[in-house]
């Protein structure tokens, strides 16, 4: 089960220790031994070191351009998230979260999820702007408030979080399919056998072939990217499959019920937000 290399184990430990100490030093809390700015700079240096260790720990895409961009986006997302959770000013926190979202979108793009990258930027940037406006309207403290300059139990929280990160990294790096040290492995060759056990989840073969549930389940458990035949027939042969068409086809055939449920959730959230935020006329709360 645990096939982790000793070198990876040591690197993982170093990354988690330096990252944890760095995060603790960056948290807003009074340190007696130095000025806050110096402590923050030391913590940021440790976080950068930990991010570099993390980059050496995991693999990265093999083409050199992909490798460079992957490392840039990954380090940016990790460092910006550390800065986000330690920013004194909530406005800065929201801006660092925007940086995290943008670099995560870059990672989505490198994973071939172009539509999702655009959607993440649009939706999250919109949500960020809304949050930003709320911060400006409500807080107006500019880091002066006491609760922004005093973290609650920073040492305990950091230890807890980095133990979680360490456990997750150990499990991820020691998974049976981890072929980090075997260069040139092609995972797409063994695609179908990996997905066969999913069919055991639902014993759908007992249903008749004309049953709608059977047809939906059969499409769900098919381990291939396919467009519906009606769309596929219109495409000239030999060109690669259009990205958004495949995503839309999967969304509105296989995951149709999920899409409807998501729409229902949006409507319920809209009604709930209106009910919660509307001031009650004549009540005790304004």
């Amino acid at each position: 089960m645990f096939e982790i290399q000793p070198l990876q184990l040591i690197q993982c430990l170093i990354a988690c220790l330096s990252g944890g100490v760095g995060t603790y030093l960056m948290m807003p809390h009074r340190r007696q031994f130095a000025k806050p700015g110096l402590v923050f700079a030391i913590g940021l240096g440790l976080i950068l070191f930990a991010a570099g260790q993390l980059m050496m720990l995991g693999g990265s895409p093999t083409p050199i351009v992909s490798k460079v961009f992957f490392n840039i986006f990954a380090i940016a997302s990790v460092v910006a998230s550390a800065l986000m959770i330690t920013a004194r000013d909530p406005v800065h926190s929201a801006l660092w979260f925007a940086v995290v979202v943008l670099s995560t979108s870059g990672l989505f793009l490198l994973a071939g999820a172009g539509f999702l990258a655009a959607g993440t930027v649009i939706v999250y940037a919109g949500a960020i702007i809304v949050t930003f406006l709320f911060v400006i309207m409500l807080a107006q403290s500019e880091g002066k408030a006491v609760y922004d300059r005093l973290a609650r139990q920073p040492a305990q929280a950091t230890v807890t979080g980095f133990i979680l990160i360490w456990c997750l990294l150990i499990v991820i790096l020691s998974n049976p399919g981890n072929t980090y040290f075997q260069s040139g492995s092609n995972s797409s060759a063994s695609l179908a056998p990996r997905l066969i056990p999913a069919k055991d989840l639902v014993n759908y073969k007992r249903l008749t072939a004309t049953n709608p549930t059977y047809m939906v389940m059969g499409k769900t458990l098919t381990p291939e990217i396919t467009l519906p035949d009606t769309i596929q027939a219109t495409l000239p042969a030999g060109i690669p499959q259009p990205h958004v068409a495949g995503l839309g086809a999967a969304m509105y055939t296989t995951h149709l019920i999920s899409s409807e449920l998501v729409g229902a959730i949006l409507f319920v959230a809209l009604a709930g937000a209106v009910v919660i935020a509307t001031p009650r006329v004549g009540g005790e709360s304004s």
Partner: protein
Amino acid sequence: MPNSIFTSADLTAYLAIGAVLFGLGTIGFLSRRNLIVMFLSAELMLQGVGLTLVGFGRYHGNWNGQILMIIILTVAACEAAVSLALVVQLFNRSKSLDVTIWRDIREAGLPALVELDQDVEPFLAAPGSESYPHLSPSGREPEVSVVASGQRAN
């Protein structure tokens, strides 16, 4: 999807970054006291989960990971709407974004976390003077009748 090969090493890298984002979001949610920063930390955890989903979807060569990420995106938007409405209500009641104020509604018998005020980091003003423009008043001050303003308050 691009035709380049997505090996399990790439999957490992995506999962590692997703795990780190998730853990940092956990730390932020546990240790920060500002309601808005706590909300942003929860969103950061969702970003980490999204990276994991997209990596798995790309690795297995189907669209399910991206579909799940779209669903997470929608649920995150709903969460933003409801939680910001709640933040507005809480701010209206206590005139503060501090979450420690609401520790009185914890479960009975649990000890209260006490923050010591001498641990507060000293406030360092940003260097340089704040350069807000000074506007000279123009015109004369409008007269507001007491009756009208009283009606507006109601």
